[in-house]
């Protein structure tokens, strides 16, 4: 089968997922602004109406417009990143062919609910993004993206005082359900948080190129299996749960 010969030879595919309005497009614009001078980037968007997000990103002027493509999802944004990834995979392949070689392709999901995550067959690593304006209890409520995405971003921490949320507590809640997986409290005005984000991306890129980055599946809500025959349910505050998800 000609199924992805060695994935390390192609661009790193990063999925960006999360509820509507939490800042997926802004995050991508930020990453493009930070990384485009040193890395060859391209972006796929999955909007409800074809190209709202693509237009936003093009107008942000952070990347050549032709490197930003929109995929139609037929009002099924969840399906397009999980159950039938065909349209996205073909779009990624086409971008890689048109602009070879690329370092990173970012795939932005259409704004969906807390249960949507990317298939590991579509992206190598995935970011789940929530924001303080969505409420301080969102992280505690959990869901596959919050608990098991490769990176969780708690966005717009600068808004915390205005929405009555304690961002430190929110990050602590998130960290508790994530078994040590990284959480970044992000604000575009907080330089240290932006650097933490770009450092994470660089680390993923190095891991991808060295062939040690294995796409992890955030999986269903619970219980979930680990492809090794084990099946279990996550409980709140399950601190003993320290195995690697592969």
């Amino acid at each position, binding site marked *: 089968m000609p199924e992805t010969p060695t994935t390390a030879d192609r661009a790193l595919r990063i999925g960006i997922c999360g509820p509507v309005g939490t800042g997926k497009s802004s995050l991508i614009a930020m990453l493009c602004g930070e990384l485009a001078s040193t890395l060859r980037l391209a972006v796929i968007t999955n909007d409800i109406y074809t190209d709202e997000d693509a237009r936003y990103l093009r107008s942000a002027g952070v990347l050549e417009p032709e490197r930003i493509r929109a995929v139609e999802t*037929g009002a099924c944004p969840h399906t397009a990143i999980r159950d039938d990834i065909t349209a996205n995979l073909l779009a990624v392949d086409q971008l890689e062919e048109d602009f070879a070689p690329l370092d990173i392709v970012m795939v932005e999901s259409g704004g969906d609910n807390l249960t949507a995550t990317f298939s590991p067959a579509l992206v190598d690593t995935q970011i789940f993004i929530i924001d303080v304006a969505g409420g301080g209890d969102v992280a505690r409520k959990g869901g596959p993206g919050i608990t098991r995405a490769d990176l969780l971003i708690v966005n717009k921490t600068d808004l915390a005082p205005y929405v009555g949320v304690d961002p430190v507590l929110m990050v602590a809640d998130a960290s508790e359900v994530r078994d040590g997986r990284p959480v970044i409290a992000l604000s575009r005005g907080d330089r240290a948080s932006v650097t933490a984000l770009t450092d994470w991306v660089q680390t993923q890129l190095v891991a991808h190129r060295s062939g040690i980055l294995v796409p992890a599946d955030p999986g269903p809500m619970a219980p979930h299996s680990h492809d090794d025959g084990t099946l279990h349910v996550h409980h709140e505050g399950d601190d003993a749960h320290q195995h690697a998800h592969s």
Partner: protein
Amino acid sequence: MTPTLPADLVLMLLADARLPTAGHTQSAGLEPAVTHGLQSAEVADYIALRLRTVTRVEAATAVVALHHVRQGLPLDDVETAWAARTPSAALRATSRSMARAMLRVVRRLWPDDPSVRALAPGVSRAVVLAAVADACGLAPVALARLVGYDDVQTVASAALKLLPLDPADVSAWVLDALPLVDRLALEVAPLTLPGSIPASGAPQIEAWAESHAATTRRLFSA
């Protein structure tokens, strides 16, 4: 070849919307039709119209392509005949893009089948379906039914996203369309020559397809 599988099971697999072929991105032209004023009460007529026109072209192309595959004849003439009967560049692009999506899963399902392996990049969807039909041992009439049925269900499922409808009513329209699908299949099944593929386009559907390809606000690819 997978000769031991019953044809009806293979057809269920191929006609199932859960087969990952990006079917959820398609409305079979219904979205631009609705944009241009098509109403809920006209969807059943729209389905029937497609079966008489553009879908008839595709079903006939698939059947003729299957004959060429089975006789070891080149597919270029079939592809050209289809393109000549599909004047809208947008419709041709959609067919080729659906073919690529189909190919991805087909190559995974029948990796060793010579007809599947022989498919060149850029072929139309009808030709990919013909190769699959050969791989599965499907009869021409079954292949034509598959093309017709898939088109009906594509319109039906997109209608539920685009118009205020009861899903049970839409299923009834699909059931009502089945005799039309069967009639289409029986009519095109004996065809073998590229020149015999009917030139039954629908200029309005083609014009809508063109305008849809140019819009930036759409739910469906086509």
